């Protein structure tokens, strides 16, 4: 399976994505610079974390107008997989592939922690291999992870079951105590209506290698890879 990992000026987590895809999952990966417009031959595009364009104006607002993003929107229309983490999620919301906006954390603090998530659905290409119990713990590292949607749009998102991950307590309760950043309805990750674009604030790519101590994030990559191999 061929992956492209997008790199914008200010992206800084691309090597984490490339490393985990090549070394842990033996995937064919290439880095894609932001001025590229040709994504032909790729099966999946990953938007990694970082601070594209210094987070100037708003997180992801300037990256969204990079030449490569127009190509990513067309790529998504073909039904192929687009997966954004952290700053990648922020870019996907700014460009309209996913609903919502990531605001400053309620605490006004950058949060760097291990965070339990509840997997809401297992019938998607991103979560088919979710563990039983559906609670996984992966790192979060962000300053603007406070997911917000106006009430009407939030209802539409919830009605179509577009929420894939919610922040929760270690025992899996989705409540205020399990919400690290003030996100509405504890939302940590959402998919588009077609089901081929996922964005999430947590970093599953940093919890895949047993050497690091946790492999809770691996199921997302395993799900994507299996879906492609058997489709």
């Amino acid at each position, binding site marked *: 399976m061929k992956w492209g990992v997008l790199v914008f000026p200010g992206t800084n987590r691309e090597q984490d994505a490339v490393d985990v895809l090549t070394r842990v999952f033996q995937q064919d990966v290439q880095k894609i610079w932001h001025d590229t417009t040709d994504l032909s031959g790729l099966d999946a595009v990953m938007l990694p974390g970082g601070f594209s364009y210094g987070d100037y104006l708003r997180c992801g607002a300037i990256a969204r107008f990079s030449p490569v993003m127009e190509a990513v929107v067309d790529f998504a229309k073909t039904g192929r997989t687009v997966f954004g983490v952290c700053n990648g999620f922020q870019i996907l919301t700014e460009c309209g592939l996913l609903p919502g906006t990531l605001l400053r954390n309620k605490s006004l603090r950058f949060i760097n922690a291990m965070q339990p998530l509840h997997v809401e659905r297992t019938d998607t290409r991103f979560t088919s291999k979710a563990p039983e119990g559906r609670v996984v713990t992966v790192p979060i590292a962000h300053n603007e992870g406070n997911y917000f*949607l106006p009430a009407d749009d939030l209802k539409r998102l919830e009605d179509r079951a577009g929420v894939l991950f919610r922040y929760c307590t270690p025992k899996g309760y989705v409540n205020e105590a399990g919400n690290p950043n003030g996100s509405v309805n504890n939302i940590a990750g959402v998919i588009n209506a077609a089901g081929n674009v996922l964005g999430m604030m947590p970093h599953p790519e940093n919890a895949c290698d047993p050497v690091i101590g946790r492999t809770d994030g691996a199921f997302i990559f395993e799900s994507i890879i299996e879906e492609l191999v058997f489709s």
Partner: protein
Amino acid sequence: MQILVEVMPKEGILDPQGQAVGHALHQLGYREVQSVKVGKRIVLEVEGDDAAEALKRGREMAEKLLHNENVEEFHVLLGEESAS
């Protein structure tokens, strides 16, 4: 000509920056402060002398890039240096 684009958090949107500034002002003794909002002002130097056209294009820029309609509102005005 100078065009100013002012971008503010929408009514009802959590503005933690504004809240933090409000707390600090209270600690300094400014008890009369009821609420604080923090936004941003973007100053554009543009070519041309048609103010109406410049404002129209300023609003376009705000719609496309300078504000996020989910959470922010904006208004566009002529800069002080253009007002004379």
